């Protein structure tokens, strides 16, 4: 009896060891390409082509980063991405907190219908909007402006974001609102000072999803913007590859730089991320 219990315990711990080993190997598979990219960004062509594709950079060519910033305009692309993504997130938050507040707290007949209508946006692929928006924008003359990117990013973020917001607004007890109204707050003040502070977690969740989509978006950015001064990182890197096809080091540096903001944002929200991702999976 005693020995068999011991045996079971031992076999379980072996199982755990194997699982742990698997996790370590899988970590290497997930992270090694990144590490390799960082090494790559510190090499010159001679090292890359001369049989040292795998190993440590020797010597490390930090100049690649200088070239990426000074000649390859990576800084401009970075600023553009920050502006476009930042504006998109801000507008989405304003529109969807207002919309979700009206849907869940204000009393009107078509509130559920309105939510359903906006939700269809989650199921419609962006592909269907590409050509029509391209034609509309060129008629109005806003191709090659930041608005041409912000507008579609906002439009296609509304479905998911409104749903996330509405779920949160529903959980707020009525008493809070009633107290505010009794104290003499109008709808505007109740919304701004009583309701908004209560949905902060939803705002973070919406910001995460909107960031991931807008920061990484390629199809619209590639079609609506061809002026170098306005290109975002995704398109900028595509053209970098075209221009610097003969010197790979700076391209590697550009790829690393493009990812740093995402890593920083991740570290800011990493604790909340699992909950955010699962609450974003509201309706699939």
């Amino acid at each position, binding site marked *: 009896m005693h020995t068999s219990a011991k045996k079971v315990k031992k076999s379980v711990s072996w199982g*755990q060891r194997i699982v742990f080993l698997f996790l370590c190997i899988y970590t290497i598979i997930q992270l090694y390409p990144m590490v390799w990219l960082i090494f790559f960004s510190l090499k010159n062509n001679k090292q890359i082509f001369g049989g040292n594709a795998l190993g440590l950079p020797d010597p490390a060519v930090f100049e690649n980063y200088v070239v990426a910033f000074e000649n390859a305009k990576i800084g401009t692309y970075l600023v553009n991405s920050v502006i476009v993504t930042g504006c998109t997130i801000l507008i989405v938050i304003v529109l969807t907190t207002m919309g979700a507040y009206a849907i869940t707290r204000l009393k009107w007949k078509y509130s559920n219908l309105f939510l359903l209508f906006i939700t269809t946006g989650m199921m*419609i692929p962006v592909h*269907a909007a590409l050509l029509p928006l391209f*034609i*509309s924008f060129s008629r109005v003359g806003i191709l090659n402006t930041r608005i041409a990117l912000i507008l579609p990013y906002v439009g296609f973020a509304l479905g998911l974001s409104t749903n996330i917001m509405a779920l949160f607004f529903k959980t707020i007890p009525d008493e809070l609102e009633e107290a505010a109204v009794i104290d003499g707050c109008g709808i505007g003040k109740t919304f701004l000072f009583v309701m908004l502070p209560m949905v902060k977690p939803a705002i973070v969740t919406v910001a995460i999803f909107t960031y991931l989509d807008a920061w*990484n978006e*390629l199809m619209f950015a590639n079609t609506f913007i061809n002026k170098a001064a306005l290109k975002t990182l995704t398109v900028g890197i595509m053209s970098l590859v075209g221009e610097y096809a003969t010197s790979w080091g700076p391209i590697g540096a550009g790829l690393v730089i493009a990812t740093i903001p995402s890593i920083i944002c991740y570290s800011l929200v990493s604790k909340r991320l699992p909950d955010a991702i699962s609450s974003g999976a509201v309706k699939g």
Partner: protein
Amino acid sequence: MNKILSNKKAIVFFILPELLIFLFVVIYSVGCSFYYSLHSWNGITDKVFVGVQNYISLFVNNTDGFLKAMMNPLILAVLSVAIQLPLALFLAIVLARGIKGSNFFRTAFFIPVLFSSVVMGQLWSMIYNPNYGLLNAILENLGIIKTGIAWLGNKNTALICTFVAMIWKYIGYYMLLLYSAVKRIPAELFEAAEIDGATKFKAAWHVIIPLSMPSIKTTVVMIVIGALKAFDTIYVLTNGGPDHATEVTSTLMYTTIFKKNLYGYGSSMAVFIVIECLLFTVLLNLWKPKQYTY
């Protein structure tokens, strides 16, 4: 109270901005795509109404490889569900049950999601590069191959190579989604199963998986729809080549509209993608996993 909350002006003020942008960007655009798709149009001369001719051209006597481009995303969807789902679920269960260093592993597995598809695409095109790529370097060092292989230039290897890159990138995302679902299951349920003599594997099979079914279903829907819409990584890695080997519906649509200037015909592909995604969403939602309360 109710009087204040049913103020018509306030309601309009709160929903109008959202409604207007949504109507223009999403609804009007889809309508336009549908309208264009019924015409023959190059964007310059006048549109000529052709009815459903563009849709017929997609399927009957098709010459531009649309059928292959339609099949590839379906293959990707099946492969992704078969590989991503079990792996993501396994990782989620292991991490949510609290293995040593689970926070570190969670971050490590999620990092590829943070990289944009363009960065990811460039990274993988370097890995697959015939001259200095990582894959060839490893295989050469191990003595498996003598000279470099052009992984993305070869019709036989290109498709599987792009799929590997795409599947690799998103496992972390689905892992995190399932992670919260597993985490919500009370530990007592799991422990009770183990006390009853179930092994960890059996407990996972009979307790965790049934209880996480709603989240697993959501994951399947997201994986399938994601595969049907796939564009970025393929556009960056191969743009559908070589010789349409890696063509998907969306890359073919892009080429048809912006390279060949077939606005009407290209729009019928866009509408096809919309209908396909809606259809699969509806079909997958016919599957209603049992909901447990605990």
